């Protein structure tokens, strides 16, 4: 469904991605783990078209998208929940959600879609007239995911949804990600530092080191991998 081959991305002269190869198949949850600065967010931004790949191809449903503008890519069905949530803090919860529907045919199915988001995250429905900035971190993350779902994506790119969120809420958010995948049939590409959670959730996973994919396999395989345990699991996040 989404095929990334040999992608290289630069920030000025600094090379962030050094030939990334990666596949995401229809209906899967694919996780990408890696340490700070490995290029995880860069890869997502490159898929979304915010950063442009200098080399390589990104093919989505048989169409090359590496040179498309970000809003065109969203129209095609790839929506990103950016790192740090990026809620419009002075707009209300419902306005935030409405903005998510921007790409979606002028919101024809708006009422229905918004109800689905509220069913998924009931707390948002209680707070729909509150400003985005007044929500807690976890609620903001739910809002960011809900907002992205409003565009009816085929693939949802999630950048560190557990960042700065209470552990209890992290579990809830990972559960909703699973629900979104199974019930709404949305393909998930998840980037995480919380490697254990990400691998447990994933059908398949990749490890990114210094802008290159070094290990790939099923989530369970990678959980058992000795190198990964040493580098990302035992020394790293333990929840």
């Amino acid at each position, binding site marked *: 469904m989404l095929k990334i081959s040999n992608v290289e991305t630069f920030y000025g002269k600094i090379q962030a991605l050094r030939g990334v190869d990666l596949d995401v198949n229809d209906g899967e949850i694919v996780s990408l783990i890696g340490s700070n600065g490995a290029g995880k967010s860069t890869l997502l931004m490159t898929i*979304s078209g915010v950063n442009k790949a200098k080399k390589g191809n990104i093919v989505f449903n048989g169409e090359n998208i590496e040179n498309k503008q970000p809003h065109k890519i969203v129209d095609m069905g790839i929506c990103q929940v950016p790192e740090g949530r990026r809620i419009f803090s*002075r707009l209300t919860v419902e*306005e935030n959600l409405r903005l998510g529907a921007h790409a979606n045919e002028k919101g024809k199915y708006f009422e229905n879609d918004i109800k689905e988001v509220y069913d998924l995250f009931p707390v948002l429905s209680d707070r729909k007239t509150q400003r985005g900035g007044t929500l807690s971190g976890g609620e903001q993350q739910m809002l960011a995911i809900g907002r992205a779902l409003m565009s009816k994506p085929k693939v949802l790119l999630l950048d560190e949804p557990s960042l700065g969120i209470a552990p209890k809420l992290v579990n809830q958010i990972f559960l909703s990600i699973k629900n979104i995948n199974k019930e709404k049939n949305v393909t998930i590409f998840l980037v995480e530092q919380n490697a254990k959670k990400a691998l447990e959730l994933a059908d398949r996973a990749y490890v990114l080191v210094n802008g290159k994919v070094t290990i790939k396999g099923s989530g369970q395989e990678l959980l058992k991998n000795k190198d990964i345990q040493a580098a990302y699991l035992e020394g790293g996040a333990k929840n």
Partner: protein
Amino acid sequence: MEKKDIIQSFKDSLFTGLIALALFGPIVGLRTASKGEGLFITPQWGVVFLLVGLCILGRFLINLNSARKTEITFFSKFTSKFSAITEDKAKHFAITAILFAVVFPFLPFTDRYFMDVAIMILTYIMLGWGLNIVVGLAGLLDLGYVAFYAVGAYSYALIATTFGWSFWICLPLAGVFAAFFGILLGFPVLRLRGDYLAIVTLGFGEIIRIILINWYEVTNGPDGITGIPRPSFFGLPFKRSPDEGETSFHLFFNLEYSTMHRIIFLYYLILVLALITNYFTLKIRKLPVGRAWEALREDEIACKSLGVNPTNTKLTAFAIGAMFGGFAGSFFATRQAFISPESFTFIESAIIVAIVVLGGMGSQTGVVLASIFLIGITEMFRDLEQYRMIAFGGAMVLIMVFKPKGILANRKPTILMHGDKK
């Protein structure tokens, strides 16, 4: 208050005095006067000491005010009056204000002078509301807004004098021209944000003015355009003795001829134009494009990730903001019947930006209050002639001291969905 606080603030005010002395010394103290042959310097130290003394006293009072927990009565009265005007009460205020504006021309104390000032304030309110779309909603700081005002005024003047079309045809055309220029400015500045954007827009404002001065064949250069047709009351001109085959306003309605008719008509015209601007802004905020503007102001990357096209969104903001500037410009041209590049200097842009910022970014009612305050105060002190701008500056300082975020800083969320109460 502690004794050492007083000493501290006294020291601080003396220091302020020193700065004031350094500034006023050469600027005010040394005055050149021509006597016989050549220029001579006449010192006027008395005035300098008066000004420096005022600065020290003012600074001392402000210090006292901020040092104390309970404010001095004068200041606290002043501030509480302003904080009483919250956005919640703004709605009642808006209705009262509109009603007042409608009956204003017929109040007993209203004379020609009041009407002129009111028309001027309304023009600035309209410009403020137009700029609010660009600055307040879309968050693009535009320091060259006067350029669109000028484009609107010149488009109207040129079309009206060349083709002799009526006001009601020229007005939308002028708006279209201004919107076109808005897009023209929009394209090169799409990639810019914040300070850089401000600098480029500032340059754009100057470019338009300089073109108007130098393109003599078309704009008549610094001499300006004269004889711009006055608007008619839907075909009825405001003339004492109409041309043959025409019926003038006072004859049609069987009134005594009075020059006030035209003034009152102009007043209602600008009132309606301004209210249309306001209504439009309030409505468009609830449409996808208006929401996209506000989202773009908040976070451009998040917008991109959600499929908002930032290019189109910014361009529409520029174009629509410019269009209303153009309408205001046409009105200005038809009211004055004469325009020249002198009316479109940077200070005009600065005043409009000041109105938007001091009103509280994005607040519609704030723009009204700031216009009345800034334009009204400058007008009240017209007798002071060249010192009038001091009153303007003083008004700005007062707002910044007491209401650093603008008169109406707390804007409510733009919409509450499905009629929800907050």
